[in-house]
């Protein structure tokens, strides 16, 4: 395994995706009594098979765990547990302030504003601990939850969120997700994912190591056992308007059909049939093919996963999990495509020093029932994504990406003033997206409504196993 990092000291969900455990439940917890909660933490790393569920580490040894259990602590949680103030002061500002205080940077405005978030996220100061259960079978979630909440003097459940991974790693908008994560220096990955990107230094995802910005190190909260091998997570409840998204694809396809030259460039001979073969809900028509062209351009991948950087005209079944590409030269992936905006890889960007420096580990799971386009309901139930965006410095990674790249488009002058069309705070009267044509010109799509809105979230510290033991042993 790794020579640089002791995986047994890391929480397992940082470097592992738990892909064989599709059922995920988040327990949003408040510390009931600090002393009892510290005992609860100590018990979670005691190695006992009964009582409080054991924290899953990054080193599974010979046998895979039946279920996985991990925790994140908010600043309020650390404070309530009795973490010394000298240690608390060493945490970064954004973590101390919490996600709700950073709403403008994250684009949490209008229908995403924290003031509109439902319980328990309407009372952020009561969110102390977010425990996550991962299981193969849904009934296992209940068993683990029961054990986690058995000691009512330790923690109080203030809310839950639950998700389920769809087959083929599809998410609600119909895209294949979870195709790739950053590969890290010093962490074994058997070269499974050639992704055309340099391996990220461990300091991208863990405190205490070299970062991607030359010479820069993030402050590690002391004592060393508290901060080292810890990291931060932006937990987000992201509601997705799938019906609205599909309706927009109809609208955009109809607009494009009015421009025969554009249709000719977007659908070269044979493309319509190939696209229709992969996405055949409406049969093979120019309109249904153009819907998919728009969906592919907004994301940067066709909905089956094929990256536009490798196959811009049609999806390619051989490339549905392809990750080995870059945006150098004349890439046909739009500058504004979601995957390019959030990770411009080695492509030219305004902030040259920032290439590869804002990468994140993403762990997401859909919540709510899948949308059935053939049987739309009068009132669609809420659905979306429970997302974890993990990095050693939320300010330098998650917030920097959200603020300057997704919301402002600062990385490319051709994007500046637009927000990410797929996930951003779209306004039908102001949002735009430039769809590139083969000839090199672009067609500007307008009238994009907001497809994703934030419905909750919190910044959490993901402590190492050693840190959990340290917190469990505090006597204050």
């Amino acid at each position: 395994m790794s020579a640089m990092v002791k995986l047994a000291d890391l929480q397992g969900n940082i470097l592992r995706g738990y892909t064989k455990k599709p059922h995920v439940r988040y327990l949003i917890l408040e510390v009931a009594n600090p002393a009892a909660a510290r005992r609860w933490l100590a018990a979670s790393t005691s190695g006992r098979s009964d009582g409080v569920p054991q924290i899953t580490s990054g080193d599974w040894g010979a046998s895979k765990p039946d279920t996985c259990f991990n925790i994140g602590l908010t600043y309020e949680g650390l404070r309530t547990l009795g973490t010394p103030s000298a240690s608390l002061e060493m945490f970064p500002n954004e973590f101390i302030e919490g996600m709700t205080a950073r709403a403008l940077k994250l684009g949490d405005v209008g229908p995403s504003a924290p003031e509109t978030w439902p319980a328990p996220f309407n009372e952020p100061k009561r969110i102390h601990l977010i425990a996550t259960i991962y299981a193969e079978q849904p009934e296992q979630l209940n068993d683990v939850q029961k054990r986690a909440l058995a000691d009512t003097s330790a923690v109080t459940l203030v809310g839950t969120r639950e998700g389920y991974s769809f087959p083929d790693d599809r998410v609600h908008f119909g895209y294949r997700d979870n195709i790739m994560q950053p590969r890290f220096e010093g962490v074994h990955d058997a070269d499974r994912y050639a992704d055309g990107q340099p391996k990220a230094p461990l300091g991208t995802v863990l405190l205490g190591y070299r970062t991607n910005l030359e010479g820069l190190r993030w402050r590690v909260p002391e004592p060393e056992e508290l901060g080292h091998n810890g990291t931060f997570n932006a937990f987000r409840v992201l509601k997705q308007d799938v019906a609205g998204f599909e309706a927009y694809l109809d609208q955009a396809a109809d607009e494009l059909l009015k421009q025969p030259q554009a249709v000719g460039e977007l659908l070269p001979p044979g493309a319509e049939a190939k696209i229709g073969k992969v996405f055949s809900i409406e049969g093979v028509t120019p309109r249904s093919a153009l819907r998919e062209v728009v969906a592919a351009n907004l994301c940067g991948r066709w909905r089956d996963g094929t990256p536009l950087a490798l196959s811009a005209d049609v999806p390619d079944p051989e490339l549905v999990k392809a990750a080995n590409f870059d945006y150098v030269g004349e890439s046909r992936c739009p500058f504004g495509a979601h995957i390019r905006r959030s990770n411009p890889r080695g492509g030219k960007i305004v902030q040259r020093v920032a290439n590869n420096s804002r990468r994140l580990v993403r762990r997401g799971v859909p919540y709510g029932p899948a949308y059935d386009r053939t049987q739309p309901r009068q009132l669609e139930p809420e659905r979306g994504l429970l997302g974890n965006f993990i990095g050693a410095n939320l300010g330098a990674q998650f917030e920097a990406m959200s603020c300057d790249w997704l919301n402002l488009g600062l990385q490319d002058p051709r994007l500046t003033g637009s927000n990410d069309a797929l996930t951003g705070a779209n306004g039908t009267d102001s949002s735009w997206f430039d769809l590139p044509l083969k000839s090199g010109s672009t067609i500007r799509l307008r009238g994009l409504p907001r497809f994703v809105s934030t419905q909750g979230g919190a910044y959490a510290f993901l402590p190492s196993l050693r840190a959990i033991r340290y917190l469990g042993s505090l006597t204050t």
Partner: protein
Amino acid sequence: MPSEGGLLDRFVDWLPTTLFFKRAASWILVPYWAHKTPVKPLPGGPHPSFEHGDNVQCMMNLIMPLKVKSPIGRAEAALAIAQNKDAIYAGLNNVGTVHFARFVIVGDNICMFSVYDGDFTNYIRDFIATIGSVFNAVVALVEDGEDVTPCEKNVDAFIQWIHERDLYQVPDTATDFLRDQEALNGDTAMSGNHDDLTLLPRKLVLQLRANPNVSLGNGYRAYPGFSAAQVRERLELGW
């Protein structure tokens, strides 16, 4: 309020315009107010906004008191900038979001004024990554600079230190200023009767006592905001 009353009213209205009254207010009344209602300095930098136009061409007005308050100290500061000129240009090129940056010595302060795009913390962090050594050389000459250098090892603390020395940008309208003050204090009630906007609002006087150096407004643009890269692209200078 204007009065058409008698001699006494006119006397009372005239009194605040006298130099004697202004001096007496500065020496006695304002310290008394400050004692009664302590005011926290409002934070510096642009007002947080989600609007695209507010997030390009933002102003930083950094005032940093020199350790050595003499012609020697000022000369050291001048040399520190001059010796790092090439690195500064290299930094501007690699960070890509700065329109211009100026260094000015005023009194015994070295000041850095710049116009940049996007988020302040990203701007400073990217500069630390590019030319942290220049920051270290300049900040070494500044009071309390040793607390946050080398900046590469104290990234968050350094950014906070810079933020604390960035001037508060007084809104153009007094009502916006009062909202800032209330937000700082977590006060959601409307301002009380000390804030007659036809007079000098007491809170503004007290804020300028706590925060003597401020920027008036956030810069007046002769044209809408563009990013530095947009300007370079339109002028075909490459970006």
